[in-house]
């Protein structure tokens, strides 16, 4: 899904080395929920060589047919500004907010970001008990189980999920399903 190169635009004239450092930013994009809108957004990223680290889409305002797309992307500040403006050119896009920039304006390091994962662990005996104990420590809940497996549901920051999954690996990890990042800024203001 990710374009591997970080060319700022399609111009062949960018022979100068980028001196700015790439950063991870989380963008919230409010769009009309109509056919093809996700393809337009993703096509923009692949067509212009931008990165997608994570993508989450869902209808958020049913009556107005609005969906909110949360994209974690990586680029230099210059590229990130381009991404925002290019997204705003798409006709069904209403608003684009760089949540990371916004959180900096509020004096915070980053916006609130959460992921959810379903983690299936199979095993018996000591490993099974250990998995359950660790799940409890991580506040993962058991949503399905029989005598040979658990399915845990865990939410949190990506790093917490990474850690939980790493710990489950030797305890009989079978499969994982993760959502992308859902994010919003702290405080009373909307996007």
């Amino acid at each position, binding site marked *: 899904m990710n374009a591997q190169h970080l060319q700022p*635009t399609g111009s062949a004239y960018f022979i*100068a080395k980028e001196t700015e450092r790439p950063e991870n930013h989380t963008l919230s994009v409010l769009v*009309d929920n109509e056919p093809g809108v996700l393809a337009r957004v993703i096509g923009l990223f692949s067509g212009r060589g931008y990165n997608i680290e994570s993508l989450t889409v869902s209808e958020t305002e049913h009556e107005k047919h609005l969906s909110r797309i949360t994209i974690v992307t990586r680029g230099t500040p210059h590229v990130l500004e*381009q991404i925002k*403006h290019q997204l*705003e050119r798409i*006709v*069904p896009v*209403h608003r684009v907010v760089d949540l990371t920039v916004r959180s900096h304006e509020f004096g915070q390091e980053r916006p609130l970001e959460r992921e959810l994962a379903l983690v299936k662990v199979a095993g018996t005996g000591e490993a099974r008990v250990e998995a359950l104990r660790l799940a409890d420590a991580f506040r993962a809940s058991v949503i399905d189980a029989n005598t040979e497996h658990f399915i845990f549901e865990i939410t949190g920051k990506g790093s917490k999920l990474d850690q939980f999954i790493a710990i489950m690996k030797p305890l009989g990890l079978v499969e994982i399903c993760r959502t992308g990042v859902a994010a919003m800024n702290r405080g009373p203001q909307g996007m």
Partner: protein
Amino acid sequence: MSNGQSERREMPRTEMTGAEMVVQALKDNGVKHVFGYPGGAVLPIYDEIFQQDEVEHILVRHEQGAGHAAEGYARSTGKAGVMLVTSGPGATNAVTPLQDALMDSIPLVCLTGQVPTSLIGSDAFQECDTVGITRPCTKHNWLVKDVNELAATIHEAFHVATTGRPGPVVVDIPKDVQFARGFYVSPQIAPRTSYQPKVQGDLDKIKAAVELMASAKKPIIYSGGGVINSGAEASHLLRELVDLTGFPITSTLMGLGAYPASGKNWMGMLGMHGTYEANMAMHDCDVMICIGARFDDRITGRLTAFSPNSKKIHIDIDPSSINKNVHTEVPIIGDVGRVLEDMVRLWRATAKADKKVLYPWWEQIAKWRARDSLAYKMNNDVIMPQYAIQRLYELTKGMDTYITTEVGQHQMWAAQHYHFEKPNRWMTSGGLGTMGYGLPAALGVQIAHPDALVIDIAGDASVQMTMQEMSAAVQHDAPIKIFILNNQYMGMVRQWQQLLHGNRLSHSYTEAMPDFVKLAEAYGGHGIRCEKPDELDDAIKEMIAVKKPVLFDCRVATLANCFPMIPSGKAHNEMLLPDEATDEAVANAIDAKGRELV
């Protein structure tokens, strides 16, 4: 920017078929001409077109031709161009003009037929994923699955194509929707909430720009196609601004004509094949005012060396153009016409125009101009291509003339040696560089301006890409003049092979050139061949006099190069000038790094 909705008649909700709605919507959006090609999936619409005569259909010979004709129509009138094609191959053939219109910001409405909704996704005959294929090459596109949404969608398509930064749109209409009955709605005034381009510039920014301009000692105005897209008033205001400030002005390929070439502040086109004075002034200026242009790579040359000591003001309707390639100190987002209106007003009110401050700058420019960078060696035996354009200009300049071009050396020579006094007179494929653009574009221009002199300045290679539209021109009594600078080569390819690849001319020579005179006659047009400089004037006069489509086979020097030139990867002040361009200089003009560039 007109949106073509001249008649907003309030109509009651009328029941009709989808095909009737298409034609009604075209009428309600002020459309007089549609360029198209019929096929299975658009037959109901063609049947409706047959039964009325308000909207005239121009039958082309290939869908690409329909697209470029509609582009020429749009560019020369300021209205949206409309094309109508069938599903599958009809739609895929439209892709090139769609991308062309996207890159040059041309309002183009493309209606495509689609297989019936029940067959979509079944790999039906002449099915393709039109909205999928055209998504990246349109400003927006729609697949209409409900006949009751058809009219509103077409109205919105016209609105999106013509407002903000103009561009191409596609409305894909399945055949069953064309047959289905539903309610027609007349054009809605309220646009959708998500699409409201900002047209009025931020006044504080405009004030800052005027202050910066007033302090400039070495200013330059660099204008582009956005001025022309913004409408006649924008060109008028641009001229006023130049007069008020006394600043020198240059323009991109797309912007030619916005400021008259006879104007005293005119420096000629800038960029890769621009004039020495324009490029040197861009490099050395202290304040640059970019108006409706986008710092394209053909303009900037090597970015790290681009106008290193200037503060830049950038007026553009598209926020993504700002800071995309070049950092701007004063960005102004808005429609060029509106912003210029404020700018001219503020300049009159606040700026003390002391044009004396600019004298040293104008003296410097005069020195650069004296370098005469467009000069070439005249030849009495062979027609030099530059000479051919100069004579064409001299013999047509007093007339109501529109010029289109193909892509290549002839295009650059035309931009250098044909001089434009008015906007909308110059139709060329700038961004995409589409060979084969000019002939069908000329057809579109001629349809819009039946009594004008429409000339496609062509190359022998480009013109063969869409030659079939000669047949369309004959059918529709469009007396377009195709002025072919025939040098037997793909001239620009050959020039680059000389510059980059040791003059190994790999497949850039056309060995089996058709006889263009016989070809013209075969199509029912008129053919002229000219091989000698002293016969050229008479031949051009003959071309102008003939009231038929003309193929003019102008045999020119085969190996002439297009200079001046900023070689790839070089800066504005590292131009290759014609008198310095020896074979050795040409062979070594581009270093290894520049070789990778296009």
